[in-house]
């Protein structure tokens, strides 16, 4: 079996020379070699079970229409077609809305977006299914559709009430300001573009049950929704996630509709059914990052101090609620980023449009909120002529009373001042700023920009009860361990971290442990692997389960070693051995202890469970402590812009990011780098273009561009903050999945800096997001205009 090895110290050291642990060490990705050999299996790669059928969705060609009739007779007669299923075939609840039940699996009488499923054709082959789809006759009465956020706002089309955070007298604060800035600010949507598209295989098994293999971040929710769809109990549905080829939030809720379809088809035909979306279908039908429009007014004193902020946020939720309200909340929670807002009134509302339902995407609204305040501060520095780094520093959270968020959570252990100081130094920021200015003075067509921005990101599900996790550790008599936990692996390295924690607790090498595919029959009622919380929550549960096993083995080992029971607690489990530190030469191999434990009838499976303590939030008052802690980071980006084409390049990026005491630093560094580039893609290239009919014209990588190999910065320097262990989190670590995504905001500030250099001093930059070459060139033109 392929196993990761410790990069710097392979092989266990002899007992006595200190305990060996893979924790905090530069491990390889647990599946890395399997990825490179093609051995790693994803749902679509699993061998087809005997008699397996495939399916194709019959989708609405209209963004909004009444479904007057649906004739499937001809389609059922197509050779190779086994079934054509419609809403009438659903025995239970026709819903896959995760929070609010406002999303039908198969549309019954109205379609709400172009691409919504109205029927499912199940057949021997994709060819047969496509012929079946073409033969379905659907009769639509086209209804007026809302396909832009602006139109939804104008028509008052909503999916939520107004959410609000408020502190102090904003009107008075704004009135007292030296300078007031107001405006509209927009950020766009973003396709997840996980390389593996949505896929579920459903296999009917005995006892009127289903075995599902699904590419989902939330197997328990898939299980629940499938059970409801079929009118079954959850114990009739088992969901296994082998691994995902990327998730990024796009498989938190949106794997479920296709898992429901596969399940319905499997039950109706009595045969295994796979539902897999091709790239175009996936991009056209699934939700994306929420586009946001913000109207704001901010007041500053001449020295750059922010005295008040009023902001109204509107997000495009698409046709159904999905997670939009929680995403809006997180946008509001992050309107402050790392800055103290003395007086603030920020409201938000989710708009309803006839588009696919927008959903979770790395950052979960946080980037959209944080982008607003960074935009406002960059503008302020441009208008006031205050150094942008000094201006940001001045507004950081500080000592009481400047240490309380707009939602009244105290900001403890604020690491931003330290991170800014260290990064300003290590990135040579001041020297390079002078070099950039000198370059710009001498270069006519190309200009450079440099900027440093911070990130403060709250960690926990803001729906407090979701902050729970379980684990099941199964130890065999030969000393080998199977580890199950509630989290799913989508590439983020969660399994590698869990492996390190388990190996640490039991003193095993990672080679002795197998992390199993996530399955609802191993750990029940799990939360989604989301909110960057996978390692925080599951890690504690894994630790507890392994501790339980270790403590059961301790008296067994003590007896074997002849150690008095009173001294058993001194035994060390390390390097695959159990020993007294004072007598390392008597070390017992771990498998000898487990073999003896079996003979002594010691139970060798154990569960672990964790819930995050002391978090709460009251939606009615907009107050509470929604986050267990905050993660911090900062980035310095240097860009060069062509004033002829608007093309630009990241010349150098320096990042200093806070992951506490990293569980596995190699994994965390990969998360930081990848998140930054993904954020840079959102902010500078990725552009969804929907036409007036609600049809997504950029539905494949031909027209929807994510960052490619040459877009990565030429010089990319990522460091993890040292001496940064975090209290009350698993082994002092901090969550890493989402926070570094927002470090890419530094690139936007740098682009603005470069664009500004094309015009006279003091002229404000108008640069739209995403900062495509076209957007940049037009911004340059405005600077150059006489």
């Amino acid at each position: 079996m392929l196993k990761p090895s410790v990069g710097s110290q392979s092989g266990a050291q002899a007992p006595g020379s200190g305990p060996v642990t893979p924790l905090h060490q530069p491990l390889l990705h647990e599946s890395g070699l399997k990825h490179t050999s093609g051995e790693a299996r994803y749902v679509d790669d699993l061998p087809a079970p005997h008699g397996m059928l495939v399916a194709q969705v019959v989708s609405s060609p209209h963004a909004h229409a009444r479904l007057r009739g649906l004739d499937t007779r001809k389609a059922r007669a197509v050779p190779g077609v086994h079934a054509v299923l419609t809403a009438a075939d659903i025995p239970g609840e026709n819903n896959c809305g995760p929070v609010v039940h406002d999303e039908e699996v198969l549309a019954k009488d109205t379609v709400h977006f172009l691409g919504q499923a109205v029927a499912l054709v199940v057949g021997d082959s994709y060819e047969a299914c496509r012929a079946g789809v073409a033969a379905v006759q659907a009769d639509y009465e086209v209804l007026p559709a809302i396909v832009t956020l602006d139109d939804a706002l104008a028509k008052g089309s909503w999916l939520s009430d107004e959410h609000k955070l408020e502190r102090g007298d904003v009107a008075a604060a704004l009135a007292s300001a030296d300078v007031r800035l107001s405006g509209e600010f927009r950020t766009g949507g973003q396709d997840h573009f996980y390389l593996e598209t949505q896929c579920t295989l459903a296999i009917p098994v005995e006892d009127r049950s289903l075995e599902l293999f699904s590419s989902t971040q939330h197997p328990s929710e898939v299980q629940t929704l499938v059970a409801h769809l079929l009118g079954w109990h959850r114990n009739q549905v088992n969901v296994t996630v082998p691994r995902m080829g990327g998730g990024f939030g796009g498989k938190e809720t949106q794997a479920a509709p296709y898992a429901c379809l596969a399940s319905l088809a499997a039950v109706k035909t009595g045969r295994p059914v796979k539902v897999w979306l091709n790239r175009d279908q996936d991009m056209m039908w699934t939700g994306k990052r929420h586009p946001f429009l913000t109207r704001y007014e901010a007041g500053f004193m001449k020295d750059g101090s922010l005295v008040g902020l009023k902001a109204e946020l509107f997000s495009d939720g698409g046709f159904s609620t999905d997670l939009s309200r929680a995403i809006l909340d997180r946008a509001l929670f992050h309107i402050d980023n790392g800055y103290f807002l003395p007086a603030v009134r920020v409201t938000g509302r989710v708009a309803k449009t006839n588009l696919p339902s927008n959903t979770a995407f790395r950052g979960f609204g946080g980037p959209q909120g944080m982008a607003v305040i960074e935009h406002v501060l960059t503008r302020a520095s441009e208008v006031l002529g205050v150094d942008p780094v000094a201006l940001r520093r001045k507004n950081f959270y500080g000592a009481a009373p400047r240490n309380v968020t707009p939602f009244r959570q105290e900001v403890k252990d604020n690491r931003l001042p330290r991170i800014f100081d260290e990064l300003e130094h290590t990135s040579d920021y001041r020297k390079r700023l002078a070099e950039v200015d000198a370059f710009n003075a001498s270069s006519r067509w190309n200009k450079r920009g440099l900027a440093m921005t911070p990130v403060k990101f709250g960690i926990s599900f803001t729906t407090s009860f979701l902050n729970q996790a379980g684990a099941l550790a199964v130890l065999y008599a030969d000393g080998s361990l199977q580890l199950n936990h509630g989290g799913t692996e989508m590439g983020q390295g969660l399994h590698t971290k869990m492996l390190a924690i388990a190996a640490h607790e039991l003193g095993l090498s990672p080679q002795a442990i197998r992390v199993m595919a996530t399955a609802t029959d191993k750990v029940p009622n799990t939360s989604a692997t989301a909110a960057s919380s996978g390692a925080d929550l599951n890690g504690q549960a894994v630790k507890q389960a392994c501790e339980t096993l270790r403590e059961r083995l301790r008296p067994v080992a003590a007896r074997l070693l002849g150690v008095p029971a009173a001294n058993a607690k001194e035994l060390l489990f390390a390097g695959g051995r159990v020993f007294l530190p004072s007598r390392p030469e008597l070390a017992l191999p771990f498998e000898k202890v487990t073999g003896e434990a079996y003979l002594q009838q010691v139970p060798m499976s154990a569960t672990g469970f964790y819930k995050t303590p002391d978090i709460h939030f009251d939606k009615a008052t907009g107050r509470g402590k929604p986050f267990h802690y905050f993660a911090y980071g900062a980035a310095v980006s240097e860009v060069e812009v062509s004033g002829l084409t608007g093309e630009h390049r990241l010349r150098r990026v320096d990042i200093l990011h806070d992951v506490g005491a990293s569980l596995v630093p190699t994994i965390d560094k990969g998360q930081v780098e990848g998140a930054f580039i993904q954020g840079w893609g959102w902010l500078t290239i990725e552009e969804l273009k929907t036409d007036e009919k609600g049809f997504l014209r950029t539905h494949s990588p031909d027209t929807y561009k994510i960052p490619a190999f040459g877009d990565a910065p030429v010089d990319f320097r990522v460091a993890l903050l040292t001496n940064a262990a975090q209290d009350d989190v698993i082994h002092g670590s901090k969550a890493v999945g989402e926070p570094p995504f927002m470090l890419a905001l530094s690139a936007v500030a740098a682009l603005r800096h470069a664009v500004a250099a094309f015009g006279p001093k003091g002229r404000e930059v108008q640069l739209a997001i995403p900062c495509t070459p076209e957007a940049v060139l037009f911004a340059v033109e405005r600077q150059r205009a006489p």
Partner: protein
Amino acid sequence: MDHLRFNLNGTWVTERAVPPTTTLLRYLRDVKGLPGTKEGCAEGDCGACTVAVAEAGADGKPRWRAVNSCLLLLPMVQGKHVVTVEALRAPDGAWHPAQEALARALGSQCGYCTPGVVMSMFEATYREDLDQPWKLDDQLCGNLCRCTGYRPIRDAAQKIAGACPKDRFTACAPESMELHYQAGGQRFVTPVTFDALFDELERHPDARFVVGGTDLSLEITKRFVAPPKLVSLEGLAPLRVLEESAAGFRIGAGVPISELEAWSERRLPSLHRMVRYFGARQIKHRGTVGGNLCTASPIGDLAPALMSLGASAVLRGRAGERTVALEDFFVGYRKTALSPGELLAAVLVPRVPDSARAVSYKVSKRRELDISSVSAGLYVEVDAKGVVTLARLAFGGMAATPKRASAAEAALVGQPWTEASIERAAQALSKDFTPLSDHRGSKEYRALVAANLLRGFFDETKDVKQPRLAPGHAATVQAGAEVRGA
């Protein structure tokens, strides 16, 4: 040969019943049960389906090439060796250097793009010409990764690039591509002589030409329509020539873009700049000069570059060859001057005189593997007095066909080669073109960029008449003394 025969992962395989429009990707996954190779987009834009194919090179030596298996029809590997990610590990379990380097660098996270990345790195392992950093970008830009941000992949690729281990992959012996194949009601013929080609065309006048398949295969993978009769030009050696004489160059229509890229670097720097960002390595291995020109796309990156160099097209029918100026080859939106039964055989490019300044530009939203918003081939000859004697300014993406800007050219000829003259030419462009808006760019952006390319061309050729792309260039146009000095 009337059946398919190719070497898959070290074993010669025969197929007689697989329909010829089956892609190699579907064949590997659905027929052979090799799911390591992934489908990420089915259009050659993500690289997850990358495999390596060895065929005999011009010098007779087999070379491994990374290609998109999603666009490769099974008859296109006739006589060739195919290696997938599953076969890289040695029989004794030893990892291929590409696999080990990538895993050690943590160059995989979710792992779904990884088999494709490994296969691109596999090609890099055996390349002897990876002597400049940009060539590594070129090698890997056809593999999208959504997780890593690419830094670790670059580190891993640098470790193995050009290592050229002597292993079992260096010994392979490709066979002839000749094929007359029918299955599932579809026909696929690969002739190796012109006589055989014209015989086939007489018997099947409704047959369609295909070479690399990078465009045609999209009909199969995206629109699910299978062309019933295909004639591949890939087996015709005379279409693969790259010849050089005192008068100029003859570039065979069947020359893959990757070969053109290597060949043009020293000979035609202006053309080379266009080819650099033409597409990903995988696409460049399969896409050909003739395919790009005969598609007659309004953008057609090669067309403006070649038109600006004064190229002409050699058309070949049973009766012989005829030559037309390249601008006359494009007769309308996606229409060429080819008659039925005729094919594009070659492109003739005259030598660039010392008096000439020439650069080609490709401007796209993303630098790599993207379709141009605007492309241009710009060429002027300036006499000893500094007066422009000839101007060929050709643009793509600005009209229904790639087209020369006659008003802008007229504004330059007879004028001194100065910024004021180029400014007048830039202004004149509005008489030449009325571009359209689409999802790649607005008409305003296109018009502005086209004019700016002229400005950049003047600036860039002040000191060097045919400037090359500098390392770390920020944009297609390398304007400014600081770049030229680099």
